[in-house]
């Protein structure tokens, strides 16, 4: 059992948990993820590590309540326990000799962006960040991102905070202005990563994305998370989740994410239809 030490509500449907998992925290590095299971009979869901503290032995995860499991997770409080918490999984990201990096996070993607920017910042790299959300109340980790960035741009789709528009609009402007980066990191919904990488491609700037396909084990044994990168099939759980964004087949990824749409609906209907007593 793994104890939830802290719970913080970052936005109406976005929560942050700090989990007591000393062994995982000891090995965690930016870019890696964990898989958790709430209880017996629960599904295994992957969540990117949003932060870790080796000294305290804790891992921070951020999740949005979209499916049955994340909604149920959202009902847990500090002091509650998770049945399983497995990691750190996937490849850590490496940045060598970078001097200037642009980090872009959309929606929940801001959370996995944070540890990468934090590491770059600690290495003395000049970090520019663009973070965005649908609206001001859904914007997360603004202060954390600002603390590790030399400059931060904020965007909202509805204009309720910062620039009115998508994060990619700012990206485009910066590149058009002639800004140069050793690498650009884009993390968010697949459509954002697709559009973002299309924008950076003509500038020939290496662009890293972090993918979120459906997974079961997270150790390379099921192949459910396969993605096409540079024409080759890769397993996001062991080969990724970070990849060269210019090589990823995002259309395939977006289709594959739809596999269990009808089952997700069944599960949520049952969950909210009184099948469980979580909300009573």
């Amino acid at each position, binding site marked *: 059992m793994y104890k939830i030490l802290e719970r913080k509500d970052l936005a109406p449907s976005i929560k942050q948990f700090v989990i007591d998992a000393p*062994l*995982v925290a000891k*090995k965690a590095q930016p870019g890696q993820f964990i898989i958790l*299971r709430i209880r017996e*009979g*629960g*599904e*295994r869901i992957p969540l990117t590590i949003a932060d870790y503290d080796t000294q305290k032995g804790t891992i921070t995860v951020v999740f949005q309540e979209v499916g*049955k*499991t994340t909604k149920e997770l959202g009902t847990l409080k500090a002091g509650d326990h998770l*049945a*399983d*918490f*497995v*990691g*750190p*999984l996937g490849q850590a990201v490496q940045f060598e000799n970078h001097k200037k990096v642009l980090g872009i996070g959309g929606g929940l993607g801001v959370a996995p962006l944070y540890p990468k920017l934090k590491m770059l910042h600690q290495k003395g790299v000049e970090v520019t960040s663009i973070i965005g959300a649908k609206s001001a109340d859904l914007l997360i980790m603004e202060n954390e991102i600002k603390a590790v960035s030399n400059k931060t741009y904020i965007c909202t789709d509805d204009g309720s905070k910062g620039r009115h528009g998508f994060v990619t609009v700012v990206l485009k402007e910066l590149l058009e202005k002639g800004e140069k980066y050793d690498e650009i990191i884009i993390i968010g919904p697949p459509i954002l990563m697709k559009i973002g990488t299309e924008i950076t491609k003509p500038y020939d700037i290496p662009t890293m994305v972090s993918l979120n396909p459906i997974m*079961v*084990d*997270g*150790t*390379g*044994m*099921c*192949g*459910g998370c*396969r993605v*096409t990168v540079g024409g080759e*099939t890769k397993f996001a759980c*062991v080969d990724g989740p970070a990849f060269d964004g210019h090589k990823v087949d995002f259309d*395939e990824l977006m*289709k*594959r994410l*739809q*596999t*269990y749409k009808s*089952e997700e609906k*069944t*599960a949520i209907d*049952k969950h909210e239809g009184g099948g469980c007593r979580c909300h009573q």
Partner: protein
Amino acid sequence: MSSINRSKTKTPMPAQDPKKRSKNFDEVALGYTEEDAVNEARRCLNCKKPTCMEGCPVQVQIPRFIKHIAEKDFQSAINVIKETNSLPAVCGRVCPQEEQCEQKCILNKMGDSVGIGRLERFAADWERKQGIKAPKQTSQTNKKVAIIGSGPAGLTCAGDLVKLGYEVTVFEAFHEPGGVLIYGIPEFRLPKAIVKQEVEFIEKLGVQVKTDMVMGKVLTVDDVFQMGYDAVFIGTGAGLPKFMKIPGENYLGVYSANEFLTRINLMKAYSFPKTDTPVKVGKKVAVVGGGNVAMDSARCALRMGAEEVYIIYRRSEEEMPARKEESEHAKEEGIIFNFLTNPTRIIGDDKGWVKGIECIQMQLGEPDASGRRRPVPIEGSEFILDMDTVVIAIGTGPNPLLTKATEGLDLNKYGYIDTDENGKTSKEGVWAGGDIVTGSATVILAMGAGKKAAQSIHEYLQTK
């Protein structure tokens, strides 16, 4: 005393009716009654030189345990089995006895061999009904052994070492121990309650099982030594699914057998939405491959509600690697076999869902390296089968997750671990066994490897 039963045929195994069982996940073979077991045991001639034992990778004292059953002393029977086999309820169900002990039985010359597997299962099931007693072994050596992987190789190695007086910890990546016995072999062939009980038996002997431990990630082999362990056994299996590398394999509704079976068995997708993990099984399902895993996948698909389930296998029935019992069961349940057929591409719709599989007819040519006749495509014979789901069950390879993270561990060119005949690897204090050494094989061969390694580890630690 019991007299010899001179019947030339095995006492039949009661089984669920094929029509009924193809709709449920309950066990197919129901097991012998006490009367069946005694009758069958009385067929054993109790040979002075029991050839059957030569065929057993874990050296079960076969005539001795069968004699106890014939005398209705079932407790002694299971005690004899457990002297050398920590997982009898599993072996009695999934061992290919027809290629091992039973193949060597002298009665084969006159008719059927003794039903050794069925008797082993009977003894184990009988004990379970009484409530298993396991004396906790006390550590007498002050030495610690770490076992990585809780499949058949790891559990056997752990069981043998704890009996020899070592402090043993098993590290398992999944949330439940058992490895392929839990995620791979389906409930109707090996009920999970039985695996659980066998694991509990080993835990009662004093073995500690730690789940959620993805070794190579959370801890390396060198970390384990630093934590004070004196030896390590690696039994991580061959868990990396192979795909065919044909167009369309990433369409929605295409599964590796590993994923398909893991969703159903480990994650209990058959209980969805009572449990949370779903699996997509359409009306028409194609399973590519001819091994036990292919049979398991096909039979699972049927039980998940598929109307037509096809096995697509590139060689002929004769070369099919599945156990005869499994392919027979599959046929009885209505699985359709397409032999000498090989997929060339998977066809999808505009949303990315599978809608068919294009195959080509094959014919058998000259024998290949495996001694089996090589299947050769017949040009221009392509045809399309409409399908909603495709499961690829053409084998697995070694998962590099742990081996890559272990310095000084020699691998062969395929990525399996190199060992000597006792499972000793190139790295000091590290042994390996099971599928991670041999490539995909059987439960019992993995157990045999675990056993040999345990003995070798014991010899090593005595001199340390």
